[in-house]
C-alpha cells in the first residue's frame, strides 16, 4: 500500500506542478518575428509584472494553431486584417474586441475604422490595428538596375537570382502585374480560379529562373545580403534594413502597386489573460513604445503620435521608396473569402511540384 500512496502522491505532485506553472502571471502572444522586441517585453514586465511568452509564426499557421484548439492556448494573436472575418465566420476562433478597454485615442482614426469595418462579423469588430507595411520588390541595383515591377520576377535576365514566397501574395502581385485586378474577382470564384491558373502557369514556366522559394524572412535577407539573390518579392522593412548596410539594395514600390497589409491585435476565443491582452495592446500602441518598435523593425505602426518620435532614417526610407503617387497606388488587401485559399493552395502545390 505504501507504493500505491507514493504513486498517487507523485501523480498529484505532477498535476500541481503543471497547474502552478500555467497560472503564473503571463501573457501568451502569437505573433510575427520582430513584433515583440525584447526591450519592450522587459519594459512591459517592469510596468505590469506580466511575462510575455512569444510564439513566432505567420498568418496561415496562426489560423491553424487557433483552429486546432478552437481559440485556446494564446491570449493575443496578430493576424493580418484581411485574414480575420472569413476565418472567424467558419471557425469562431476569436472574440469581439471590447473597444472601451482599448485606448483608441492612441490609434490613427482612419486605420482603426478600416480595421473595425473589415473584421466585422455578426455586427462586432474582432481586431484593432497594430502596424502596417507593404509587399513589393527588394532589388540590388548593382546587378538589376531595370527592375520596375513584379513581372521582373519572371524575367529571364535575372536567371538564378530571383526569389519569392510560394504564398498567396505572390499570386496576387503577379496577377496585378499581368494587368488584372484579382481583388475585383474576389466575389467571382470561377473567374478568380481562371486568373490564378494563368498566373500559376506563368510561374511554372519561369520556375528555372528561381533561386529558391523563400519561407523565412531572415534567410531571404541573408541571401540578398550575400548577393546570391538580386531580385526578390518581400516586405518593405527588409529592403530598408538592407539599404542601411548596402546602398545598392533597396525596397522598390512596384509599378502595378505595392500590396498593403495591416497586422492587427485579435483576441482568441478562449484567451485566459484578457486583462493582460488589453494591457499589451495599449502598451504597444503608446507612441514612445510604438516608436521603439518602428526604429527596430522599420515598420510603421497605427499609433497616432509615434511617427514624430521615430528616427529620421526611418522616415527617409519611406519617402525614398514611396513618392506620393506610389502611396496612392498601394493595393490594400480586402478581406479574403475563405474558399479562395484552397484554390490558391492547389495552384501553389502545382507550381512547387512542377519540374
Amino acid at each position: 500500500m505504501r507504493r500505491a500512496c507514493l504513486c498517487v502522491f507523485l501523480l498529484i505532485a505532477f498535476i500541481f506542478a503543471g497547474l502552478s506553472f500555467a497560472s503564473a502571471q503571463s501573457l501568451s502572444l502569437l505573433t510575427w518575428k520582430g513584433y515583440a522586441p525584447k526591450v519592450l517585453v522587459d519594459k512591459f514586465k517592469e510596468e505590469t509584472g506580466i511575462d510575455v511568452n512569444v510564439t513566432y509564426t505567420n498568418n496561415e499557421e496562426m489560423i491553424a494553431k487557433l483552429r486546432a484548439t478552437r481559440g485556446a492556448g494564446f491570449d493575443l494573436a496578430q493576424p493580418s486584417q484581411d485574414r480575420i472575418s472569413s476565418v472567424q465566420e467558419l471557425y469562431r476562433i476569436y472574440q469581439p474586441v471590447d473597444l472601451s478597454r482599448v485606448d483608441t485615442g492612441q490609434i490613427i482614426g482612419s486605420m482603426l475604422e478600416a480595421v473595425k469595418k473589415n473584421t466585422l462579423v455578426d455586427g462586432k469588430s474582432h481586431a484593432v490595428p497594430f502596424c502596417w507595411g507593404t509587399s513589393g520588390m527588394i532589388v540590388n541595383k548593382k546587378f538589376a538596375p531595370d527592375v520596375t515591377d513584379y513581372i521582373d520576377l519572371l524575367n529571364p535576365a535575372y536567371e538564378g537570382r530571383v526569389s519569392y514566397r510560394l504564398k498567396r501574395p505572390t499570386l496576387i502581385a503577379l496577377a496585378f502585374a499581368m494587368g488584372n485586378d484579382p481583388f475585383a474577382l474576389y466575389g467571382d470564384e470561377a473567374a478568380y480560379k481562371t486568373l490564378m491558373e494563368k498566373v500559376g502557369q506563368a510561374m511554372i514556366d519561369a520556375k528555372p529562373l528561381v533561386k529558391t522559394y523563400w519561407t523565412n524572412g531572415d534567410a531571404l535577407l541573408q541571401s540578398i545580403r550575400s548577393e546570391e539573390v538580386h531580385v526578390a518579392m518581400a516586405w518593405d522593412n527588409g529592403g530598408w534594413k538592407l539599404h542601411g548596410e548596402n546602398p545598392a539594395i533597396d525596397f522598390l514600390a512596384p509599378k502595378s502597386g505595392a500590396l498593403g497589409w495591416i497586422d492587427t491585435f485579435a483576441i482568441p476565443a478562449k484567451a485566459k489573460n484578457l486583462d493582460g491582452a488589453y494591457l499589451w495592446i495599449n502598451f504597444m500602441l503608446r507612441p514612445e513604445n510604438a516608436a521603439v518598435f518602428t526604429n527596430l523593425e522599420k515598420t510603421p505602426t497605427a499609433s497616432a503620435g509615434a511617427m514624430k518620435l521615430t528616427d529620421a532614417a526611418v522616415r527617409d526610407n519611406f519617402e525614398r521608396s514611396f513618392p506620393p503617387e506610389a502611396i496612392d497606388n498601394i493595393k490594400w488587401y480586402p478581406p479574403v473569402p475563405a474558399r479562395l485559399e484552397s484554390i490558391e493552395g492547389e495552384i501553389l502545390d502545382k507550381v512547387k511540384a512542377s519540374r
Partner: protein
Amino acid sequence: MRLPRNHPIPWTLVCFLTPVILWLFLLIVLPHIDLLLMSLRREDATGATSWSIANYLLFFKEPIYWLTFVRTAIYSIIVTFLTFVIALPVAFYITKVAAFRFQGFLTMLLLLPFWVSELVRVYGWMILLRESGIVNHFLLRFGILERPVEMLYNDATMVMGLVYTSMLFMVIPLISVLENLDDSLIEAAYDLGGTMWSIVFRIIIPHAVPGIVAGSIVVFMLTLGNYLTPNLLGGKNSLWFTEQIYNQFIASFNWNQGSAFGFLLLVLSSLVVWAGLKLSGQKLSRVMK
C-alpha cells in the same frame, strides 16, 4: 470489482505501464481516430460537412498528389539503400577491425552529431554548401572553380542530407548483429580461398539480414516522414509528400484532405515495408528483436 485477496494489485506494474498506455492511447490512438473520421468528411461550399470518400479519390485522380507520393517513396528507398551501403563498412570496421578499446569511442563519434537537433545540422549543411558558403569559398581560393556554383536546392544534396540524417539508425542495428558474427567464419572463408566480395555477400550480409531489415525499416519510415531536410536542402524542387500534408492543413485550410493524405501515407508506407519484408523473407517479429 473485488480482487481476490491473494492477488494484490501489482502497483509497480501499474505505475510503469500507465505512462505507456496513456501515451499510446492519448497521443497515438485517439488522434488517429479523429484524423480517420476527419478524412472521411468533406466540406462543401457553404461549410457544411458530409460523409464521403472524395478525399481519398482525389489522391488517385490528381496526378500531382500520387506522383509526389511515388517520388517520395522512390527517393526514400534510394536513401535507405545508400545509407546501408555506407553503414555496412562502418559497422564492420567498428565491430571487427577496430581495437576493442576504441569501439565505444568510435560509436560515440557516430552518435555525437545527433546531440544537436536536426534543424541545426541542416543549417550547418546550408552554410557549407550555399553559393557564398564555405565549400565554394575554398574551391575558389584553390582555383578549382572560376565562379561559385549553387550546391543547395537540388535532389543530390537532398539525398545526401537525408542519408546523413539517417546514418545512425542503420549503423546501430548493424553493429548489434555483426557483434554476434563469429570471427572464425570469416577466417575459415579466407583459408578456403574466399575473396573479399564473396565473404561480404555470402557470409556477412546473410548473417546481418535481420539488422539490415530492421535498420532499413527505421530509415525508410524516418525518411518518408521527414519534412525539414527535403524542404530546406531540396528547396524549390523538393515536393515531399509530408509537405503536401502540411500544405493541405496550413495553406488550404483543408484538414479533411490533409487527414486523408496522412492516412494514405501511413497505409502506403506500411505496404512498402510489408513488401520489403516479403521480398527479403523476414518476419517483423524476428527483425525487431
